[in-house]
């Protein structure tokens, strides 16, 4: 790692995370006249929302809502963005300033030169799982993350590169640069907004449901990708054999409200995203039957219960039952063994595809960013709001605030509201500094 020899750039606020909450917070502050540096660990802005099909309960196009905000953030003159970068070593240098090291990872592509033409991608001979399609399909080692990525520029996945040099030869813009090294960019800021979102629950921690063992058991995020126009397959298909499914089951609370897998709390979004996907599936596959196995339907938000009743009205079958086990037949169909709570019986049913409505977990990499400061977390490892009722964005470190799901599970509108509150509290804090 190179030494810090560059003088630190000065900003008003550091926003960590370029998802919907981070963008909202950064834009609000920038529009108030503050200078913001935004750090995103991924290759593109947009967070998880940019990969979703529609939002509940309005069924508006998710990408259509988020991409204008992404573009506005990227073009705002008061916002400096570092993608594929991480904020580290956040320390207090005085009562009203933090020092931060931004670690910029090498893309092996000169950002200013890359035109996003995909020439490198076409000639790359290596295929690895495409993380942006949740491993349903492959991508090249030289790749553009996804079609609406911002910035839409290529990256070389050096760990999977065979160093053949085909990409460099094919790049007419001469943008490939294998000599790039990680950079350390020191900055100083008056305040920090944490908007790092959440992690998806790892479905492999539920061995009785057979994820990664049975190809036709998928996660809800994999189904979400199948429902977007830039989907991995040509239609909604079983990953195991490319068959159009006609009988799909959803298993709710897969990795939520379950202390045995380390996530005893409700993830708050799974009921509604499953109901949303069920409705979208009935549009995509008009002949398909969709069954949702649930413990309780938590339709608590504005318009949520009506949305739930709409799904029932469309013919989605809701079965109250706890799933004990999923097993696979030779033809790839899946047998669900469950307890039908209303009838008090153990039953089995056959489906040709099963979707695990996986929950969300706290992103646990945050406290390590503050080596000398004590950033409190709650019992579930989310960042603790120390004055939740009066100042919901405050953390245990004065000058550090939370926006979105970094402080607990929440849906998109609540994340945006939380980001609004965080930017407002941050602005108020900075205006009161000497």
């Amino acid at each position, binding site marked *: 790692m190179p030494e810090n020899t560059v003088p630190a750039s000065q900003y008003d606020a550091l926003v960590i995370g370029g998802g919907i909450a981070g963008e909202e917070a950064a834009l609000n502050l920038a529009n108030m006249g503050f200078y913001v540096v935004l750090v995103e660990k991924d290759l593109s802005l947009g967070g998880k929302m940019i990969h979703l099909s529609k939002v509940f309960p309005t069924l508006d196009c998710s990408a259509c809502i988020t991409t204008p905000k992404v573009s506005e953030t990227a073009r705002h003159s008061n916002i400096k963005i570092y993608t594929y970068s991480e904020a580290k070593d956040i320390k207090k240098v005085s009562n009203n300033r933090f020092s931060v090291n931004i670690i910029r990872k090498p893309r092996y592509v000169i950002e200013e030169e890359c035109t996003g033409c995909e020439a490198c991608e076409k000639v790359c001979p290596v*295929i690895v799982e495409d993380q942006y399609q949740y491993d349903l*399909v492959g991508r090249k080692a030289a790749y553009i993350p996804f079609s609406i990525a911002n910035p839409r520029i290529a990256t070389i996945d050096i760990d999977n*590169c*065979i*160093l053949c040099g085909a990409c460099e030869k094919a790049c007419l813009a001469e943008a490939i640069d294998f000599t790039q090294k990680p950079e350390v960019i020191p900055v100083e800021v008056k305040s920090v907004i944490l908007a790092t979102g959440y992690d998806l629950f790892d479905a492999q921690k539920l061995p009785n449901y057979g994820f990664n063992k049975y190809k036709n058991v998928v996660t809800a995020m994999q189904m979400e990708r199948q429902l977007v126009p830039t989907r991995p397959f040509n239609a909604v298909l079983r*990953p195991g*054999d*490319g*068959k*159009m499914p006609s009988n799909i089951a959803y298993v709710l609370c897969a990795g939520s409200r379950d202390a045995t897998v380390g996530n005893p709390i409700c993830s708050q979004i799974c009921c509604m995203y499953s109901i949303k996907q069920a409705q979208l599936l009935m549009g995509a596959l008009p002949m398909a039957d969709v069954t949702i196995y649930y413990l309780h339907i938590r339709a608590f938000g504005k318009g949520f219960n009506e949305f739930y009743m709409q799904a029932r009205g469309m013919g989605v079958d809701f079965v109250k039952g706890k799933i004990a086990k999923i097993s696979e037949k030779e033809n790839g169909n899946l047998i669900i063994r469950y307890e039908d709570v209303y009838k008090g019986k153990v039953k089995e049913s056959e489906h040709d595809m099963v979707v695990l409505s996986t929950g969300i977990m706290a992103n646990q990499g945050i406290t390590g960013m503050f080596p000398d400061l004590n950033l409190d977390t709650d019992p579930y490892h989310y960042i603790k709001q120390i004055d939740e009722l009066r100042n919901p964005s405050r953390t245990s470190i004065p000058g550090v605030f939370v926006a979105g799901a970094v402080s607990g599970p929440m849906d998109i509108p609540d994340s945006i509201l939380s980001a609004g509150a965080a930017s407002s509290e941050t602005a108020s804090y900075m205006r009161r500094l000497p």
Partner: protein
Amino acid sequence: MSAEKTRTIDVIKQQRQVPELAKQRRKAFADMRKTIRTALEDEPKTIPELAAATGLQVGDLTYYLMTMRKYGEVTVGQVDDDDEYFYYELTKKQTHNDKS
């Protein structure tokens, strides 16, 4: 265009070795691609038909076939009579005459 420009790939080659897994992935894709292309040369096939023709494991076949579709090598045709499986065929190369 500078013919003398040093290729940066030559620099990194001095500094790091190619990971074994990356070599295996390249070979796996090359082998799969060749097998799928050969099997689709004569006529469009569904995934079960392709699996029967090639002996490939159907899950792996789906993954690589869909990857080839993503990169434009394979085109999707009609669905079969049971409305279960789509037919896939090799993408026809556009000739100069096609474009005009």
